């Protein structure tokens, strides 16, 4: 069973989001997503300063099997990309909710974050996917 930390919010497309104390939202992919993709070999993180819409593809994670888009959970400005992933994409496999974070977004509208799936709803979505 993959880990779904209770304090995070999720997208059906398997991104997680965490509201930080400075108001930014950190984004990564869930434990389930990294397991499904297998060993990651490359991560393309967005350039800081880029403006994104909620649901917009703004990063790419690539495994030996597939290259998948990462969607921003909220509209706003990219304030950081995880540069560590350039040399160590496997951080996502090892620590998807910690060192494997992908980007930070400064949201325009806080209500978008509140509307994301909570852990329970994401677990239900995962269950629905596998059955």
């Amino acid at each position, binding site marked *: 069973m993959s880990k779904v930390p209770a304090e995070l919010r999720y997208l059906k497309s398997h991104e997680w989001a965490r509201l930080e104390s400075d108001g930014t939202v950190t984004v990564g992919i869930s434990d389930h997503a990294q397991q499904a993709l297998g060993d990651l070999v*490359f991560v393309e993180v967005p350039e800081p300063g880029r403006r994104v819409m909620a649901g917009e593809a703004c990063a790419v994670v690539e495994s030996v099997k*597939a290259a998948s888009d990462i969607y921003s959970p909220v509209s706003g400005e990219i304030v950081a990309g995880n540069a560590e992933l350039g040399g160590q994409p496997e951080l996502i496999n090892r620590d998807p909710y910690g060192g494997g974070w992908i980007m930070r977004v400064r949201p325009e509208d806080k209500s978008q974050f509140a509307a994301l799936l909570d852990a329970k709803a994401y677990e239900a979505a995962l269950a629905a996917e596998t059955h």
Partner: protein
Amino acid sequence: MPFIPHTPDDVREMLATIGVPDIETLFDEIPRELRAGSLESIPAGLTEMEIGRLMQERAARDGRRLNFIGAGAYEHHIPAAIWAIVTRGEFYSAYTPYQAEASQGTLQLVYEFQSMMTSLTGMQASNASLYDGASAVAEACLMAVRANRRSKSARVLVPASLNPTYRAVLTAIAGNQNLSAEILPYDARGGHLTAASLDKYQGEDVTALVIQQPNFFGTLEDVDVLTDLAHAAGMLVIAVVNPTSLAVLKPPGEWGSKGVDIVCGEGQPLGVPLSSGGPYFGFMTTRMEHVRQMPGRIVGRTVDLDGRPGYTLTLQAREQHIRRSKATSNICTNQGLLVTAGTIYLALLGARGLARVAAACIERTSQLVAALTRIPGVRGAFDRPRFHEAVLQLDRPVGPVLEALAARGIVGGYDLTPHYPALGAALLVCATETRTTADIDTYARALGEVLDKAAAA
């Protein structure tokens, strides 16, 4: 006999199973007016004997003309060994196999090709080839849009002295993908791109600059200056090169202080016959930092579970069969057979052999230009160094002159008038290593007579 495995009984059974009366009904959803209708205008098939006869007659009508036309496709000597090897059963397929790793020989050949192209262009990674030089330029521009992440504009600067066919194909392929190609003028005296023509783009968001070396006129560009200026302005640089010329010219990987970002071009000069314009092959190389944005297949060398070397398709995750509409390109095949010819050509000639071919081309073209510009009414258009082509200006329209030369068995060059009206009666000529001094004399004599006759009429 049609190559369809189903018998009429099979077909009836399948139709009955899905409850459709006939095959025609399967196409019901296509509106009437969009249907091609009957194929009445297509003649019935010919037998092998008939088609062989027809093609021989047509080939005889072409005759064996003395050729002085280049303009993107070049008549080089092709050692007989090349096509003897290419047509061996082990190589004789136009495709990378679908179960690619089962064909280690094909993959090794492509890997050798890639190694040769990276070495020739001074870059770090090569793909397994593209359709031709023109589509390679279009793919390179689209790649630059993906790779230049600081640029948002998808504006690409394209010199007017880039092969006009490449410009047309770039517009056809990339024009509907939000890419805008802006044309840079050439210098009227040198036929080259000047540094000053980039001035007005300073401070603007431009994605990439295309530099063709030698350019369509055969003129050599100031590649170092142009590359550095473009990089300083945040553009990527795309080099479009003739592979033969790279044996004697600086490889694009060393242009300017950093080298270019993408190199592409037409592979035909490497052992592929002119053959009425195709099939040819395009090539593309790049730096490692952009390799994930490069379209097409890439063969890598690896080891198997027992540690033995082996070849495999690599970086496939961005390709069409995995990424669908988000693939880096919808070109996912390569020109396997022609790449085989190109690889054998380069292996047979070696670096020194290729340099001798290039040097002979430069020498023959200089002889040709000297012989033709001695004729009254013929002058060289540009004063810059060139590779193996040159623009001549005549004092009368080029079309009728070329027709009169053709009647004497000479293909006299490429009429630039339709693409470059500002150059007046301009003719692009080329002499490769296959033209002898006697050939050049024959052409000069014929052109003199044709112009005399036209002046007297």
